[in-house]
């Protein structure tokens, strides 16, 4: 199997398992290139779930932290191998695409319309999926998003981490 099709075929498999065969004609092949708005939509939906309990209660502060984290993710992605960047673009594009929602999330509504509980359930379902590709998506996104969040000095106060000021 071609390397760059691995997420594609795995997710297509997941989708067809849920929806019946025939989804593969819905433009999968176009979905490997970066689409900033798709990435933004997906991150805006998943970050608040992943960071639930870590984000400040003040909404304005929380939004600033989410924006800072999204920027950090955007800054980091180009350092990944192109192969891995494509896989991530594909995942973001699929998750932002309504037609794939049912296969991936079990809901035919946009990610952002899911309740927080539904988003937790979605992450758990990926983690426990019998499909290696969904497990990989869970772990890949988890590491990327947590790394971006906890890399920011503005987010260290709740963990009482004080970075040394050496010079």
């Amino acid at each position, binding site marked *: 199997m071609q390397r760059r099709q691995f997420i594609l075929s795995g997710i297509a498999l997941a989708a067809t398992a849920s929806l019946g065969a025939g989804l593969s004609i819905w433009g999968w092949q176009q979905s490997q290139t970066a689409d900033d708005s798709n990435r933004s939509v997906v991150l805006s939906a998943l970050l608040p779930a992943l960071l639930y*309990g870590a984000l400040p209660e003040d909404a304005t502060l929380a939004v600033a932290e989410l924006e800072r984290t999204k920027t950090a993710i955007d800054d980091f992605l*180009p350092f990944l191998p192109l192969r891995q960047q494509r896989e991530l673009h594909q995942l973001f594009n699929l998750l932002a695409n309504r037609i794939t929602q049912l296969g991936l999330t079990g809901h035919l509504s946009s990610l952002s319309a899911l309740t927080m509980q539904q988003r*937790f359930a979605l992450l*758990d379902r990926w983690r426990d999926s019998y499909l290696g590709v969904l497990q990989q998506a869970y772990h890949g996104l988890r590491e990327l998003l947590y790394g971006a969040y906890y*890399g920011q000095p503005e987010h260290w106060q709740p963990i009482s981490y004080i970075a*040394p000021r050496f010079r």
Partner: protein
Amino acid sequence: MATQHIDASTLLSDQQFEADIVIIGSGAGGGIAAEQLTEAGFSVLLLEEGAYYTRADFVMEERWAYPQLYQEGAARKTRDKAIGILQGRTVGGSTTVNWTTSIRTPPATLDYWQREFGLNFSGDNDLTPYFAKAEQRLHIQPWSVAPNANNAKLQQGCEALGWQYSVINRNVNGCANLGYCGMGCPINAKQSMLVSTIPAAMALGATLISRLSVRKLNWQGNSISSLDAVPVDHYFQPRSDIRIQIKAKHYIVAAGAIGSPALLLRSKVPNPSGRLGKHTYLHPTVISGALFAEDINGHSGAPQSIYSDQFVWPENQDKAGYKLEVPPLHPVLMATKLTGTGEQHAALMAQFNQLQVCIALQRDGFHPQSQGGSVSLDEQGQPVLDYPITDYMWQGMREALLSMAQLQFAAGARQVLPIHHDAKLYNSWPEAKTAILQLPMQTLRQTVVSAHVMGGCNMSINPAKGVVDQNGRHHQLHNLSVFDGSILPTSLGANPQLTIFALVWRNCQQLLTQLKPFSANVS
């Protein structure tokens, strides 16, 4: 003296360079070789894919260090994403970012190499004088300062249980016990290649070319004639607009145990043994977290100062051996490895300073069910590592989780959290033991990491069982040597940098005796 450094990303047109010896990679192998060969009077070009960052750049922040100093932004993974790999990619290679642990090759490992690969490192081939030379050159000494609390808990657990432990030798000089070795030493205390052999080689005339990715060795018959390279872009991705060609009399590949096989695979060099890019070892590592009542502050102080070899050489040869150490604890490293999501994850992170962490590094490559991984190339010609984990290895990892939980409770932990996606915080050793025995040992449920990549161009006396000979010389191409961790025929059961320093130092002396005649001709 004119500057001896060229940043390839600033070149505006195709270029050609020539030298007696070109060294591809500036880590533990390339760094030692650069100094030895320059001192002997050869003109040396030292090539590095990463950037030439120095102490003023090292700001002790993970968000800068990981993308700038590590392969694939420190997010390198095996093909199935089951094992995360920390590996340096900067001038000095992994020595710039490692945790300074310096251990001589275990005698049992050398014995195994002799039996299986005909490699005799005794008598005239004894590595002892080379360990001593490297220890002197790089100021490798036992750490005389008290261990930080993270390491002290490892020591206390060993003492309580009667387990073996040792104080670690570190390659530091003037260390301020900051704890940020993994992000580049901000005070040049760590005696990495970046501050020792590389500047010494450059002062003697070696030229360093950074941000250069070598794509192919051109060869015919039994000889390499040139190499092709390209600059990398801002994100360390190979560019295609400018081509660099380099000619040398001798070629030393030292791009690390993933990079070196990848370059040789791209070059389609002769591979009659079939072992090129095969038998890649990782010291696959599992993690155990523990919460203590008191502050541990695992981010502060020398990251590694105590290890335990209680389990590394089990009497029962059918059991996998593992070495116990601790890692430094920093926010990104912890957040990405701690399990769970949402409130569960946030609650663990809130106890960041009370967290103590042990790691168990499995000694892979010594058993029929532990034959390592294999490097192949993706569509861009970039390496991907497959590393299957066998039942034998999973069993060893389960035993390692048990040992670490037992140790952490013995050291006074309130709760222990094996880093496994089905595990939770356990309140006692009996509870942890029962639970760990039930954990499903499977990829992507059991977290596995690696900071030591070895093998893929293994040495062997017998060309049918190895890529290079005992001196690191390629069995088929006469002017090619491989001088890095990729020549190791198994893992080590110890952190690898000192083994690489000593082996390469010795290999340089062997190479010099063979190159001297042409040196006399050219100079």
